[in-house]
């Protein structure tokens, strides 16, 4: 009794198992419905049209790759595995280059951070405390905000409760602890910033890999 223990159990189990229904058809109908709505919105509501189809693509990517941001932050503690974290770092490298090129073509107005393509916000105690609490919350809830949307699509009703919790939490008033905007291209040329950030992310990728190997042994 060695290699076929599991196979034997599985075979016994599968004997009284019916193959589940094929749901592919519904999936295809849904894709075409969304595309149709996007086309109808295209002319008058261009931004909505793009948002809807981009959202669908993001949902498909998240579900198919099982990529979960909560897992990226959590797995290094639980098992020492960093594969999800490294996937997120790869995504950051790709978007650093992409956002960088878009920002290079943008004519900056000094100090007007709202106009910069991307999200530039003040950093201060708010981000530090907020990030920390968010980190605890996403592990306890079993998924971050993106993950919960993905899991609602998968049929998990528990995440409707997480959304209610999220809205409750979001209505708690916060004190004023806004900090100062630190936008790297204010200090160095944007081209240099892009290169430094990509190199830094590559180093992080490498460190994650080293950490994983070390935990393994």
């Amino acid at each position, binding site marked *: *009794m060695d*290699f076929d*223990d*599991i*196979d034997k*159990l*599985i075979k016994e*189990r*599968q004997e009284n*198992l019916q193959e*589940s*229904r094929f*749901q592919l058809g519904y999936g295809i109908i849904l894709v075409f419905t969304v595309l149709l709505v996007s086309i109808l919105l295209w002319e008058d509501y261009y931004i909505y049209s793009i948002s809807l189809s981009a959202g669908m693509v993001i949902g498909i990517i998240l*579900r198919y790759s*099982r990529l*979960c941001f*909560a*897992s990226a932050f*959590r*797995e290094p503690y*639980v*098992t020492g*595995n960093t*594969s999800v974290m490294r996937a997120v770092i790869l995504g950051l490298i790709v978007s650093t280059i992409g956002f960088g090129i878009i920002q290079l073509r943008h004519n900056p107005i000094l100090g007007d951070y709202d106009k910069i393509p991307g999200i530039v916000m003040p950093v201060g105690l708010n981000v530090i405390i907020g990030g920390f609490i968010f980190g605890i919350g996403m*592990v306890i809830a*079993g*998924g971050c905000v993106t993950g919960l949307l993905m*899991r609602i699509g*998968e*049929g*998990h009703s*528990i995440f409707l409760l997480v959304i209610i919790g999220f809205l409750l939490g979001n209505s708690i008033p916060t004190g004023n602890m806004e900090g100062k905007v630190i936008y790297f291209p204010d200090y160095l040329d944007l081209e240099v910033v892009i290169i430094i950030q990509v190199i830094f992310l590559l180093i992080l990728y490498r460190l994650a890999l080293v950490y994983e190997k070390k935990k*393994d042994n």
Partner: protein
Amino acid sequence: MAVRKLDCLTELCPIPLLKAIQEFKTMDIGDILVIEADHSCVCTDVKKWAREKEYEVKSIEIGPGEWEIYIKKTR
């Protein structure tokens, strides 16, 4: 050889994996753990862990979006 079942239906990551790790501590070599789960990430999550530990692992789908993961404590 003993077979243990772990019902993790509707449980979310990382609870099934943490439960499996806990269960494995009290199992003998050659024992098999069967985890029932209905969340797609649990399947990949647990299998990834088992492969890393070099345990024998297989999974079957027992219904739409419901899986059984078989892990054998080989060492």
